């Protein structure tokens, strides 16, 4: 080690003019910084791994249980939705990814890191969008990978009773891509809620409310008001992944995608609005 103590250098810092000419904040550089932040926290890495494990694990368990049940009861209705059966783990990973989205920003507020982040990027929006892009791409890629593994291994299990489907079957690719998109959307809505609310507890409560409570409340709405149900994130996501379209009350897959995009635009837009206006 070079013992370059400040004393040895007369307490001053050596000039570092060589990078000064090229230094400036750009979005690609903020993306690199956010990638470093995402991958340098143990909690983040573990949560991402957990999301992958539950996506694959629960899919395998439910597929195996379905096959066992079929051998036992010969109940063919269990095999109606083989894609959905193999992707059931997505319901659990959306929670992990959603909470991680919250923590990505509330972790900075609770530790004070946000002041360093916004001090380095005083325009602020690149910080939010940098997080959204890095986390969105990462969670989409990991979710899609996990979903593909869950799909192929799940269908292999279901094939034992001739109940599986192939990836080339109608709408299957759409459902797989859509499932990953839905998980990513929940993650980014978590990021948006975290930015709006800033406290970890409050933001997670709001996120879980959106995932679990809002569907219950909207299901009680009478008559035509009940149509609102179609537009909540869960059901818009459901429209994206459901292959069995008999008698369900969902939007079309394209409609579901558009609704999720609107949720993202509104959520991140509100987050951007407050982030640039509030004191940090």
């Amino acid at each position, binding site marked *: 080690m070079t013992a370059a103590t400040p004393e040895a250098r007369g307490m001053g810092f050596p000039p570092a003019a060589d990078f000064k000419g090229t230094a400036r904040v750009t979005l690609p550089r903020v993306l690199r910084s956010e990638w470093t932040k995402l991958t340098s926290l143990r909690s983040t890495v573990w949560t991402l791994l957990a999301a992958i494990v539950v996506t694959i694990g629960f899919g395998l368990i439910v597929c195996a249980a379905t096959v066992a049940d079929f051998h036992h009861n010969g109940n063919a209705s269990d095999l109606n939705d083989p894609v959905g059966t193999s992707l059931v783990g997505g319901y659990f990973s959306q929670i992990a990814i959603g909470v991680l989205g919250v923590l990505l920003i509330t972790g900075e507020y609770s530790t004070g890191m946000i002041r360093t982040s916004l*001090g380095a990027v005083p325009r602020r929006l690149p910080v939010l969008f940098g997080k959204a892009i890095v986390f969105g791409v990462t969670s989409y890629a990991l979710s899609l990978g996990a979903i593909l593994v869950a799909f192929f291994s799940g269908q292999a299990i279901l094939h034992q009773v001739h109940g599986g489907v192939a990836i080339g079957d109608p709408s299957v690719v759409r459902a797989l891509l859509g499932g990953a998109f839905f998980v990513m959307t929940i993650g980014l809505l978590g990021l948006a809620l975290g930015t709006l609310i800033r406290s970890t507890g409050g933001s997670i409560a709001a996120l879980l409310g959106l995932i679990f409570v809002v569907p219950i409340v909207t299901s009680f709405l009478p008559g035509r008001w009940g149509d609102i149900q179609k537009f909540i994130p869960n059901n818009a996501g459901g429209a994206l992944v459901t292959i069995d379209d008999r008698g369900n009350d969902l939007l079309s897959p394209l409609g579901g995608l558009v609704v999720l995009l609107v949720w993202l635009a509104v959520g991140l837009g509100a987050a951007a609005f407050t982030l640039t206006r509030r004191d940090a």
Partner: protein
Amino acid sequence: MIEARGLTKRYGSKTAVDDLTFTVRPGVVTGFLGPNGAGKSTTMRMAIGLDRPTKGAINIGGKAYRDFPAPLTEVGVLLEAKAVHTGRSAYKHLLAVAQTQGIPRRRVDEVLALVGLTDVAGKRVGGFSLGMGQRLGIASAMLGDPGVLILDEPVNGLDPEGIRWIRTLLQALAAEGRTVFVSSHLMSEMALTATHLIVVGRGRLIANTTVEEFIRQASGDLVHVRSPQAARLSETLARDGVTVTTTGLDTLDVNGLTAQQVGEAAFAAGIPVFELTPRQVSLEDAFMDITKDAVEYTHGQTPAPRVPSATSTGANA
């Protein structure tokens, strides 16, 4: 160069910073002094765009902080509380900060070595002591080799060695021609570190002067005299600009004359003197005196009347 013009910040009906106007010049350490709650941290947060002024502005080198394309290369900042994610290592923290504006990894290693944290660079910041946290903050501030430094209470909670380290560092940085703006609520610390002083209380500017001048104005000359003919001596000394206070049967406090002047006057008048003690009001007392109307939170009890001869005991700086 940091310039505040009519800087004001209100939170609801509470005014944290009230119409501050001052300039911080390069080349010397400028102390930003005031009791807790005087608005120092708020002012510094406004300087780097974290808080938005209600009125007025604070600019650095003629620009608003947010308009710098690479702010870290212009202004280095150390905020009072640790502004670091505790789960991240020191190295990754600095790397993430450096990456936002294309500061190379080599510079991260360099600042870590310079603050003496190389050996613990891979350890999580959550396990750092207060002193290590402050060193990391200094490393972060120096990442971009900035010409302006804004440091909020950098010696807070440090051990004597750490305090000396920061004091010497700040003076060296100022000597290199940088603008160094340091806040503290400790007058004695500022007296040792700073050359220029901006003193605030309750968000208002109280003084904008050199440390030397501030101390001279605040303390004045006070001489404690004991004489069997105290009353006569009192009459002898009385003249314009001199205040004589009788503090006991045979004791006087003389304000406005040096000990030598008092002794000569007593000799000329043939008055015996048993004791002649020059006393300087301590810096902390001077500071308290000047900011006493501007302290936001006082203790429940009415403060005891200040007796200079009592407060100066053993507290001479």
